[in-house]
């Protein structure tokens, strides 16, 4: 994880070791009270009995986890067989979030690099240029995006108008639209961390490599990418993890024919189901999953560094 990525490299030091407790105290207090406490409440809730139409009954129960992993038929009276429904929903979300992250990286890295190599005084302006659209509410942005992508929308009119397509491209209500929605929701979260890292990059390293006859794409791959890796990792985390739980943009653009993790959990708290323990359990499973993914990643990175 970024902390893991953070652990390696020559940039770590113990310059502020004595002050570290004081430096971390604000974060510990704020997050301990405002995030850890609510998460602890949800962890407890996931092991309680559900109260019909929301809420919990204070009796220990594994019902929520049973519901997640055990299929007992339409009427809940068959013996337990493996429940694929929720695993399938999780897998779909991971896949969509992964694709959206890749899309963001492919578009976001060159953009961040381009911004970081502008003359110093222009850089902040470019950063603002990338973030200004996010002053407009997500709902409004997404609805407008949908308007553009419609079968009879401006994009298709343009593409058929110049003769590139004969038939309008059906984008809305497809998986690709979901990925596009996620990509559009989180793009600056990829661009800005990479920008902050590349801006620091010492181009003398590229010069040196090039003097030793490395082609420029080799320089990019072997010299530049490894040294700005923390920025790329940070960007990928900031796009991938929130994408997993997101539902508004993918639902609007993708048609919401299938649950994503976010809409499944939302339904447990705000929908007819009103099954708080199940919503809490699904969140805890999601949380564990993300932690494991990040840990494996941190392990590999630590290995690669040593």
């Amino acid at each position: 994880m970024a902390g893991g990525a953070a652990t390696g490299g020559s940039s770590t030091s113990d310059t502020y070791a004595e002050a570290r407790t004081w430096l971390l105290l604000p974060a510990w207090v704020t997050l301990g009270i405002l995030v850890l406490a609510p998460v602890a409440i949800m962890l407890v809730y996931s092991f309680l009995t559900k109260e019909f139409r929301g809420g919990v009954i204070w009796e220990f129960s594994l019902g929520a986890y049973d519901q997640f992993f055990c299929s007992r038929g339409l009427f809940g009276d068959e013996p337990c067989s493996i429940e694929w429904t929720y695993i399938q929903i999780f897998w779909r979300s991971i896949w969509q979030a992964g694709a959206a992250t890749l899309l963001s990286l492919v578009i976001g890295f060159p953009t961040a690099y381009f911004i970081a190599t502008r003359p110093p005084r222009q850089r902040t302006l470019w950063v603002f240029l990338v973030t200004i659209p996010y002053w407009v509410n997500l709902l409004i942005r997404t609805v407008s995006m949908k308007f553009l992508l419609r079968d009879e929308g401006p994009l298709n009119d343009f593409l058929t108008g110049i003769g590139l397509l004969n038939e309008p491209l059906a984008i809305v209500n497809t998986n690709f639209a979901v990925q596009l929605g996620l990509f559009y929701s989180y793009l600056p979260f990829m661009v800005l961390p990479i920008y902050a890292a590349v801006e620091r990059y010492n181009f003398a390293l590229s010069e040196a490599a090039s003097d030793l006859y490395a082609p420029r794409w080799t320089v990019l791959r072997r010299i530049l990418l490894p040294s700005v890796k923390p920025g790329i990792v940070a960007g990928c985390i900031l796009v991938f993890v929130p994408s997993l739980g997101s539902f508004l943009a993918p639902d609007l653009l993708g048609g919401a024919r299938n649950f994503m993790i976010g809409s499944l959990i939302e339904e447990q708290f705000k929908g007819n189901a009103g099954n708080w323990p199940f919503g809490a359990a699904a969140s805890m499973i999601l949380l564990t999953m993300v932690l494991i993914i990040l840990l494996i990643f941190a392990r590999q990175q630590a290995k690669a560094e040593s």
Partner: protein
Amino acid sequence: MASKKYDLRVYPGFRGITLLCLVILYAPLIVVMVYSFNASPSITNWEGLSLRWYADVFTGPESAKFKSAARNSFVIALIAATVATTIATLSATAILRGGKFRLRMVSFGLISLPLMVPEIVTAVATLIFFNAIGFDRGLLTILLAHIAFCIPFAYLPISARMQGIESTYEQAAMDLYATRRQAFTRVLLPLMAPGIVSGFILAFIVSLDDFIITNFVKGAGVETLPTAIFGAVKQGIKPNIMAISTMLLGVSVVMVTLSWLISRKDRKT
């Protein structure tokens, strides 16, 4: 150097991708702007040019509500982003410059926790928590919740930047008799600036756009722009929201231009 056939900093195609990126980002906003001038109450059928929705924003029955919602959103986003960025900078310094210590991974895990929990869960749990400790809901509860979930968004760009800065700079400063505090404020912080600015901006837009958590922790009579906009959708999306969005864009463009002009003037004198 001059004998190089090409500039090593320039990769072919990157400029093109950047432009594509901007087109993707701004194309929907052009729709928003155009339809804010629509004479029809529809956001998809064009009926002619009109300023009626701008008039509606200022004189319509909901104008006072939207105005206070906009003010709340900005005050909250500014304060939350400032506090979150400060906390994130201090934490990054401790985690990356504080040597090896046991709580290091735990601290990082805690900082990224708000990212990993779906918003609706944080929302319901936070509401339960505030009620349990008898905290009256209002602007303050929104602010506190926003500070908490903004921290990871500020932290990651900042730490990505700090990892690119060798500690030799501060060591050199301290060898020259700078105190640790001076090494931090005069050497590390200025080097960190692009990371801190990036972190602040991300925290700001995350706070400005938050709906789910805000919707649960807000108190009676307090609206933010997203809660007002989502609420209004129950009656159908009207172009007055497009007009509000266009004006917000205008404000942001003016603010950015001003700050750019001012900073340019500073450098000249």
